[in-house]
């Protein structure tokens, strides 16, 4: 299976080399595409020096647009699988191999690595956990699923999902809404447990006011997916 690992990165010059090295160790058969979201440091050059492909976005657009750029690349170059591994080192690429195996074996369209499925002791701030729990509750209520980590960006997807998300993908705080879109178009999403590190390089870009704004916006967006017609994705 031809696989592309998409690495969204914003000012991760400190850790990008080790992230790339770990991905190569975890999934040596995959191609790596670093999508540089308008970094002001040497993230892009350091990634290029490691011999991976780099897309340099002209300005900072956020994780949603950045990841989607990688998906458009994946679609245009005919990849079967696309994975997301964040450039900040929070995701463990060794778990990626397990995600891929699960995608091979099951009929799911997307496998998500969940922090809250038992393994690992991922402690986050209390407000964040409340927010995550809220979105789990909302998605499980609306779509009759059992998602535990709706904000996890650590996932692998097949061509159906690549096709859907390369056309339309939310721009801010995209993961919960993307799940809603996936469910709405009849795709199957599975979670498997994984560990995530606390952020190694860089600083988190969310404060309290923004968090409230995102909660409202994403909730509204998820509700809007119910109102729109179901989209059958044919690959």
């Amino acid at each position, binding site marked *: 299976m031809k696989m592309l690992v998409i690495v969204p990165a914003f000012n991760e010059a400190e850790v990008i080399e080790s992230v790339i090295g770990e991905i190569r160790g975890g999934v040596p058969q995959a191609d790596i595409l670093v999508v540089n979201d308008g970094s002001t440091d040497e993230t892009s050059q350091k990634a290029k020096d490691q011999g991976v492909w780099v897309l340099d976005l*002209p*300005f900072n657009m956020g994780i949603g647009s950045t990841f989607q750029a990688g998906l458009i690349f994946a679609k245009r170059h005919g990849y079967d699988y696309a994975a997301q591994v964040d450039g900040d080192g929070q995701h463990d690429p060794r778990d990626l191999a397990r995600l891929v195996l699960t995608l091979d074996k099951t009929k799911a369209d997307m496998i998500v690595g969940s922090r809250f499925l038992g393994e690992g002791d991922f402690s986050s701030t209390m407000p964040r956990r409340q927010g995550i729990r809220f979105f789990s509750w909302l998605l499980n209520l609306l779509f009759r699923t059992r998602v535990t980590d709706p904000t996890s960006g650590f996932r692998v997807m097949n061509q159906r999902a690549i096709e859907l998300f390369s056309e339309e993908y939310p721009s801010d705080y995209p993961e919960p809404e993307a799940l809603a879109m996936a469910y709405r178009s009849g795709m199957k999403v599975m979670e498997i447990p994984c560990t995530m590190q606390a952020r190694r390089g860089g600083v988190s870009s969310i404060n309290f006011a923004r968090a409230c704004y995102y909660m409202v*916006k994403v909730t*509204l967006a998820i509700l*809007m997916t119910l109102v729109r017609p179901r989209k059958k994705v044919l690959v």
Partner: protein
Amino acid sequence: MNYQNIQIWGVVFSVSLLALTFWFMKRRWLQEKYALVWILVMFVILFVSLRSSVLWLMVTILGIETPSNALYLMALAGLVIISYSFSIIHSRQSQFYRRMAQEIALMKFEIERNQNPMKEAEKGNSRER
């Protein structure tokens, strides 16, 4: 307009605009992030139209003559806020567009240069010959 009429006007106005907002969001002509300010303002107008206590408060505290004037004032203030937010959004977007256009010009240069590597190297672009 007497007072009951102004309440009806306020409800019709805010509910119509809310319906329009959701209609455009459904068709993806309006993104959720830009719809939020409309939804917020329209809900405030709807609430104030239905519960007149806020309007009477404005009459006594701010010295506005009638509660219907207060409702008009709130609707006007709401629309000004919305307009302002869009001016700010437009300003940011025009910066983005300018940068994208520049990037495209730079990319075209690189692509054309790579297509004719030998010729460019021989010719150069200096004015001196």
